[in-house]
């Protein structure tokens, strides 16, 4: 059959596997792909080795001094004290008592300098690994991970963002990686809108219309096949798979006990949703907690926000560990930047990109590690300065991806991560 796009490209390989799977599965079968060929035991093994990533975005700029890098008793330390954690020698803010007990699953990078203090630019850098430029768009981390981990066996969307409300629409955050890897936003603990088959269409009618569609596809593909037609088919298959498995987005399917453990506020529910989606095989889930942009009364508001963050996040980590999922799941807690060590007139802290921290743990990451350091009062990095690009490489390597490779998109090569950067090797297992 005719193949109009570059042979040897990623799309070619993917489309071939999907195509073969679809044809071999025959008419009337569920959408195929590799899954159609594997035995249950092998599928289970594949599922166990499958890597996933959960990103917790603390929106607005979490203060590193009120979280991962406290400096009590200094002119910048503020009123909160530091508490020991489950890792001897690691102390974090007293605002995170539950997370402190899970520190043996987590690590800290305390020496980040992204040289940005604008929300949009900081967020872009932290989520793409690149400085924002008008010259072009870079794919977000979720798209890169979804594509990097996509072996053709998983028909579910690989890039999901969870909000308080979400329409199920696909975002354009995958840039040149294509719409298949754009995020789907879901919200409210419910399946995406329009993902339920109308009750007026019976099973028999649905099977018949699928059969008609498949036969029409086969006839078309015999004459003309392109990367675009394959992308369309894949999107359709993904949507159909999503419809068939829409219950994975339904939080009411989780036990009442678990729902209580995570809490009834949005962030708690989103942490539980992240666990559920990761268990279901979604490669990348991003959840968000808002708002940390505390130019005013920083301490009151961090007390409130981290009070809401701490227990559900710690519960998520504990649950992932209990389920044996920490080895295969990378969890990253990040913001678009940190906050100024200097406390302003209104007890606030302002934007600060120079010396701040993230927390991460799980797949491929040494647990209980601290990378880098800041000086006595947190005004500068004193050891092992890293930028967003270093972190980006590190996440991909932790997931088993070779971050110095390139994607082949329609014959053009795009680096998986900024070639000028490299992973933080001492953080990796």
């Amino acid at each position: 059959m005719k193949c109009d796009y570059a042979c040897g490209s990623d799309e070619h390989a993917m489309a071939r596997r999907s195509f073969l799977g679809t044809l071999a599965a025959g008419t009337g079968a569920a959408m195929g792909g590799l899954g159609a060929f594997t035995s249950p035991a092998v599928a289970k093994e594949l599922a166990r080795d499958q890597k996933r990533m959960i990103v917790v975005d603390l929106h607005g700029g979490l203060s590193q001094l009120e979280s991962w890098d406290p400096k009590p008793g200094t002119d910048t330390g503020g009123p909160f004290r530091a508490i020991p954690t489950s890792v001897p020698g690691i102390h974090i803010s007293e605002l995170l008592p539950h997370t402190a007990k899970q520190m043996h699953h987590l690590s800290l990078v305390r020496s980040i300098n992204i040289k940005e203090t604008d929300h949009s630019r900081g967020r872009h850098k932290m989520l793409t690994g690149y400085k924002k430029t008008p010259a072009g768009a870079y794919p977000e981390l979720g798209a890169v991970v979804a594509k990097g981990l996509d072996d053709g066996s998983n028909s579910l969307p690989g890039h999901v963002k969870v909000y308080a409300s979400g329409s199920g629409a696909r975002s354009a955050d995958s840039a040149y990686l294509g719409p298949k890897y754009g995020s789907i936003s879901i919200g409210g603990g419910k399946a995406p809108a329009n993902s339920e088959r109308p009750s007026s269409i019976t099973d028999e009618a649905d099977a018949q219309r699928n059969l008609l569609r498949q036969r029409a596809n086969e006839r078309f593909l015999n004459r003309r096949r392109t990367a675009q037609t394959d992308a369309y088919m894949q999107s359709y298959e993904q949507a159909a798979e999503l419809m068939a498995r829409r219950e994975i987005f339904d939080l009411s399917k989780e036990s009442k006990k678990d729902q209580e453990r995570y809490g009834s506020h949005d962030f708690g529910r989103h942490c539980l949703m992240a666990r559920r989606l990761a268990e279901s095989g979604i490669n990348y889930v991003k959840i968000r907690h808002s708002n940390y942009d505390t130019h005013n009364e920083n301490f009151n508001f961090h007390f409130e926000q981290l009070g809401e963050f701490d227990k559900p996040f710690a519960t998520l980590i504990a649950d992932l560990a209990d389920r044996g999922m920490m080895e295969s799941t990378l969890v990253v807690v990040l913001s678009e930047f940190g906050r100024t060590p200097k406390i302003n007139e209104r007890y606030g802290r302002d934007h600060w990109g120079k010396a701040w921290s993230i927390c991460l743990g799980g797949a491929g990451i040494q647990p209980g590690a601290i990378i880098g350091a800041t000086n006595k009062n947190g005004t500068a990095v004193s050891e092992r300065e890293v930028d967003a690009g270093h972190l980006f490489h590190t996440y991909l390597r932790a997931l088993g991806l070779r971050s110095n490779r390139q994607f082949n998109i329609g014959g053009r090569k795009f680096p998986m991560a900024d070639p000028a950067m490299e992973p933080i090797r001492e953080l990796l297992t």
Partner: protein
Amino acid sequence: MKPDPKQTHVARELAGAAPLICCRFDPSGKYLFTTAEDQSVNRVNLTSGESVAMLGHDSWARDLAFSKDGKTVVSSGFDDTLIWWPVEAEKPKPIRSVKAHKGWIRTVSVSPDGRLLASGGNDRIVRLWNMADGKLVREMPGHTLDIYSSVFHPSGKWLLTGDLAGKINQWDVATGKLTRVFEGPDLHDYFKSQQVHFGGVRSLTFSPDGKQLVGAGLHKGTNPLGAVCEPLILRFDWETGKQSLKQTMKGVKGVAWRIRFLKDGTLALGSGGSGGGYLGFWNGKDEAPIHKFKLPRSVREMDLHPDGMQIATAHWDNKARLSRMEAKAKA
């Protein structure tokens, strides 16, 4: 001598070593006590200007209250701790240190008879202590959000505590029973887009005749994280419990940090925020102030001198400023 708010001017600046948080005159008027971001409590002799740092807290100290005889001052810290200090010692050292709450202790008040100390803060429990020996007398749970302020009724029979939700609880001191709740919903908002509670009853006081309970804080919080709000005062009729008057400082961006009545019944307020620092003055009937005086820096706290003529304000630039409510003395 009578204060004339319209003549208010900064008469003196007292420089400290760190940004200030709280300021209180001792009952004799001899000293100004301040707390600061370096975890210190400081005693400034107003005659000599000498300042003594009193170290003992493991975090910032937020509030100060004096014994009836003026010989002891109690500081409340963000380190869960109340510390009793001697007012007159050459180098004051803690008399007693009590782990009183879990979390910040935002407010302390002493009963009119001097026997009891009330405290409250982020653990949302009001506690009464024996002022003489620091022993716990009673716990009163019931607030649903953090406790920000406290004041005893002039009779000593009741304690009033105000919280972030804009509620003021009236407690029977003898039994600990919750007797009444004054509702001040205008003093609180849950800001959905930023997902934060904002406001609270930042200060409480009684009118000199005891007929009004007055609470102050903020309203019009259109951007809590960006400090966009305005000061707000609510007066409640003590007899009926109903809100009787709302007093505002329109156009001034800030928080009402503290209110005190002058001897003539004028209400003074110290306000600070993104609009700068102000002292505002109100009569008993109008919404708008009779006068507002702009200070060089934003205000974080204020207190009225026992002589009734001076107001101290605490500032981020390490300074306490003493403003006199009378014409400037000729040079």
